[in-house]
């Protein structure tokens, strides 16, 4: 069942702002009612979305998917299944060839504003090599014109949040380890306090111990911050551990969307094949999920 959809005009103003911030600022009861529906509504919605390359190759078709606010949706699938494409449709690094992608209830609007309201973390991190850690983390606040001391303060706060030393601020990315770099990447994505976080295999290139550590911290962080997260991975264990729901993709199509527990018991052939491939027995699974 769908909640009352706010008018596009209203919703556009809200895109990217924190729900709490608006509800206290606007006294009108009618609008507040709308607010309520937005706050509890879907953060992201794919409606019959397809994506075709200029060459004619179809990467995605008939995608219908919803992400609730505060949820972590994991896009699981093998290489080339369309996970990353799906993710990039959310922050408009790609535009859908068919259907629409709604973020905070709207499918249109200023793309630059939209991107600044969405945190983005990728596997290769993509830190600016010529910027210090501090400037890297503060990039979105900087281009948004925050005052300098507020940025500095925010950077220190974020370094704490992601478990890095305050003195790391003056280092350059190449002076950091892989794990530290990815922490900076996460801090940078969180800088302007976006309600939505997109993460494309952020822990994929890390060694198992560091990955485990970062996954654990991600869970702790998510409990505190309660962001809407879309997380791409091909690692079933990671999906079981981090996801509120797991969306399994194969060959540009969505196979099924299930909570972790049900995913393990699913008799869907693709899901079962995935579980088999990872050799995740029920005992292991229980531990991962809890």
């Amino acid at each position, binding site marked *: 069942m769908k909640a009352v959809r706010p008018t596009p005009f209203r919703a556009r103003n809200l895109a990217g702002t924190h729900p709490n911030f608006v509800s206290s600022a606007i006294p009108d009861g009618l609008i507040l009612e709308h607010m309520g529906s937005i706050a509890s509504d879907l953060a992201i919605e794919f409606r019959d979305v397809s994506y075709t390359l200029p060459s004619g190759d179809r990467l995605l078709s008939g995608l219908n998917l919803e992400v609730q606010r505060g949820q972590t949706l994991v896009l699981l699938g093998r290489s080339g299944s369309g996970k990353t494409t799906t993710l990039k449709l959310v922050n408009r690094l790609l535009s859908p060839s068919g259907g629409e992608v709604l973020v905070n209830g709207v499918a249109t609007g200023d793309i630059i504003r939209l*991107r600044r309201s969405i945190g983005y973390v990728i596997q*290769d991190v*993509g830190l*600016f090599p*010529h910027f210090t850690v501090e400037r890297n983390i503060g*990039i*979105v606040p900087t*281009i948004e014109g925050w005052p300098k001391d507020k940025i500095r303060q925010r950077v220190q706060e974020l370094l704490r949040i992601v478990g890095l030393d305050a003195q790391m601020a003056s280092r350059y990315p190449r002076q950091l380890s892989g794990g530290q770099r990815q922490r900076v*990447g996460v801090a940078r994505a969180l800088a302007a306090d976006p309600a939505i976080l997109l993460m494309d295999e952020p822990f994929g290139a890390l060694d198992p111990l560091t990955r485990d550590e970062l996954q654990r911290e991600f869970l702790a962080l998510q409990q505190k911050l309660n962001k809407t997260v879309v997380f791409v991975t091909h690692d079933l264990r990671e999906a079981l551990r981090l996801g509120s729901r797991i969306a399994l993709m194969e060959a540009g199509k969505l196979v099924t969307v299930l909570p972790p527990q049900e995913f393990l018991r699913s008799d869907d052939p693709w899901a079962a094949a995935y579980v088999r491939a990872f050799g995740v027995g029920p005992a292991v699974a229980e531990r991962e999920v809890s």
Partner: protein
Amino acid sequence: MNFLHFILQNRRQVMELTLEHLWLVGVSTLLAVLVGIPLGIMIARWPKWNKPVLAGANIIQTIPSLALFGFLLPVPWLGDRVDRLAILALTLYALLPIIRNTYTGIRGVDPAVVEAGRGMGLTDRQLLFQVQLPLAFGVILSGVRVAVVISVGLATIAAAIGAGGLGEFIFRGLAMVNNQLILAGAVPAAILALSADLALSWIERGLRPQ
């Protein structure tokens, strides 16, 4: 060392011609930078312009310099002042390395960095000035270095149309079959090229993030 003797005796004139030479090279390089870097940025952004622009710069490069100087001589406004003409010709020759290096420099920026920047909501302009150009700077500057070294050599030929510079000694020496005179032009030109190259490499090292 007879030619050293010659240089000492004619140091005023050597100085004068060296400054003239520097003027030709400096102005033409500056113009080539002002035209070449934007062109390089343009073809990095709109790749369909890549082929025609680079082909054009390549073709210019294949024209023998003496022919180009002679070819431009009858052009009305240009032909009035030969140094104008020499500067234009030198600018055209300096374009190719600058355009090409700007293009490769921007294209060579780690795609993950560009994608992250775009994904965070940097505008094209912010991405260009804050990320792509700073990261491409070393490659662009080495293009300028190549252009300067080429220009110092080519500028000697500008003397053939009377634009001055150290080429005067060389052409005079050729006409008089006087090796000392040729060396008096060639050696300072070589020193000029080397020191310009060295100076630019210092700048490059100084500006690179440590």
